[in-house]
């Protein structure tokens, strides 16, 4: 057709006089109605999914942080145990071991535990106040070492064996290994839960996108007939789902952060700061990870909806 303006031809001479200028609200109307694309129920479901996803990701991060702190502490310490038939032999062995330890490069600090403290450690097996009656309670020496010495303890073992034959060195390797395995298992479990939750977000998106498409059959048909491509329609749906998903995901994040904060405060007040357990705290880069979770949730939601719509359009139209 001619490139002249549409109304620039004789027929339009008959047109009624132009209307008084009126203001049109030139805002971007979504081509798919909000309610048809899932609306509030979808936002609520995504909020719940996001809440659970943030909690599971927080579990991954907290387990990782705790395991790192535990293993770091274990890796910086070794324990020397000196046995003997009586207190004198044990004391002589402990003194020899202390001398070797203090001479060894890489030993930051060596400290022999008080006999009463050592006896207290045995109370669970020997009964309260019974341990003190034993004369051959081993001497325990806690040793803080540098990473360099920790990496190669063979020479120290040899020297200890020569100076104090009844001394044995425990590098906590077994503990460290078990703790690492437990932490890894915990992390994998929490991450698996996280993936399952994202899978649930995908499933919900597929369901909502298909339902939305069915509810908006007439609109989609008209869009096709005026020349819309499948990509265009899918982009409209994706945009809608991204907005709904973002709203829900942020709501879920806020509630999850509040829950985590409450839990952290409760634990802190309950177990104090000197506990064997590391502090349950979230900050710095952990928060960034947690903020990434709702973003991932709404991206998964939007992309799943897009792919679902593209597939459905190929099947149905």
């Amino acid at each position: 057709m001619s490139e002249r303006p549409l109304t620039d031809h004789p027929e339009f001479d008959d047109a009624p006089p132009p209307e008084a200028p009126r203001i049109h609200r030139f805002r971007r109307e979504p081509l798919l109605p909000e309610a048809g694309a899932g609306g509030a129920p979808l936002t609520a479901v995504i909020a719940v999914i996001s809440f659970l996803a943030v909690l599971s990701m927080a579990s991954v991060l907290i387990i990782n942080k705790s395991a790192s702190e535990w293993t770091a502490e274990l890796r910086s310490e070794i324990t020397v145990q000196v046995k003997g038939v009586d207190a004198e032999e044990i004391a002589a062995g402990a003194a020899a071991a202390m001398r070797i330890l203090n001479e060894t490069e890489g030993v930051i600090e060596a400290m022999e535990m008080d006999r009463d403290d050592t006896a207290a450690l045995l109370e669970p097996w020997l009964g309260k106040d019974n341990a003190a009656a034993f004369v051959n309670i081993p001497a325990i020496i806690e040793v803080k070492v540098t990473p360099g010495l920790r990496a190669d303890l063979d020479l120290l073992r040899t020297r200890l064996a020569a100076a104090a034959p009844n001394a044995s060195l425990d590098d906590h390797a077994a503990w460290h290994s078990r703790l690492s395995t437990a932490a890894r298992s915990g992390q994998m479990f929490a991450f698996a839960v996280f993936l399952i939750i994202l899978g649930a977000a995908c499933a919900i998106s597929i369901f909502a996108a298909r339902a939305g498409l069915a509810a908006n059959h007439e609109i989609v048909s008209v869009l096709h007939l005026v020349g819309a491509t499948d990509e265009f329609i899918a982009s409209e749906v994706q945009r809608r789902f991204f907005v709904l998903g973002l709203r829900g995901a942020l709501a879920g994040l806020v509630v999850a952060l509040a829950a985590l904060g409450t839990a952290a405060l409760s634990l802190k007040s309950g177990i104090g700061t000197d506990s064997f357990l590391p502090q349950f705290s979230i900050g710095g880069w952990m928060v960034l990870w947690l903020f990434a979770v709702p973003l991932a949730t709404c991206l998964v939601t939007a992309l799943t909806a897009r792919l679902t719509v593209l597939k459905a359009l190929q099947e149905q139209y």
Partner: protein
Amino acid sequence: MSANKAIVEFEEAGFAYSDEAETLSDINLRLHEGEFRFLTGPSGAGKTTLLKMIYLAHKPTRGHFRLFGEDTAGAPRDALPPLRRRIGVVFQEFRLLDHLTAFDNVALPMKVAGINQNQYREDVSELLNWVGLGHRMNAKPPTLSGGEQQRVALARALVSKPDLILADEPTGNVDPAMSERIMKLFIELNKLGAAVIVATHNLHLVQSLGKPVLRIADGRVSHSAGAGGAG
């Protein structure tokens, strides 16, 4: 025979809904650039079905159909939207989107074509003013009368300056004066180069304008020259 290119071509085409007998059979039809046809026939004869095949809502179940020279049966899926954008359709049931304003309904073909609003805002406003709805740009279809909805549908069909205009009973819900203006508009647009097919029951309109007529009866399409008037 017109020297212009054929833009709609049916050869031995037929169409059947599911496994039923053919609604339309043995269609042999050519429409060239710049041609005007009325499409008449009794209710249920298949006028709307023929138009649906032309605007690619239905595929012929047999025979060949070419639109703007493209064999649509063999065309990949993504080749169809550009063809549809070259057609302006005034649907019998209007098919306006209820959640959009009159302005946004008219602008729909431009939006799906990815055209910036600044480029079509004036055309859309002007068209709506011309059809007498300049004061209802922000109104949504459920608040418009049948005649007003029909005028919005008309504006939507014309806004992209299509090469082919298909109108299914475009004057069914408007008063005689507006009917006359709409038909004069189609004729003017036809003079500007657009091919036009108008399906109508209004035989008085058909006779008064004297344009060639396609008649559908018993599932078959026949041609006849228009009576009277300029062709």
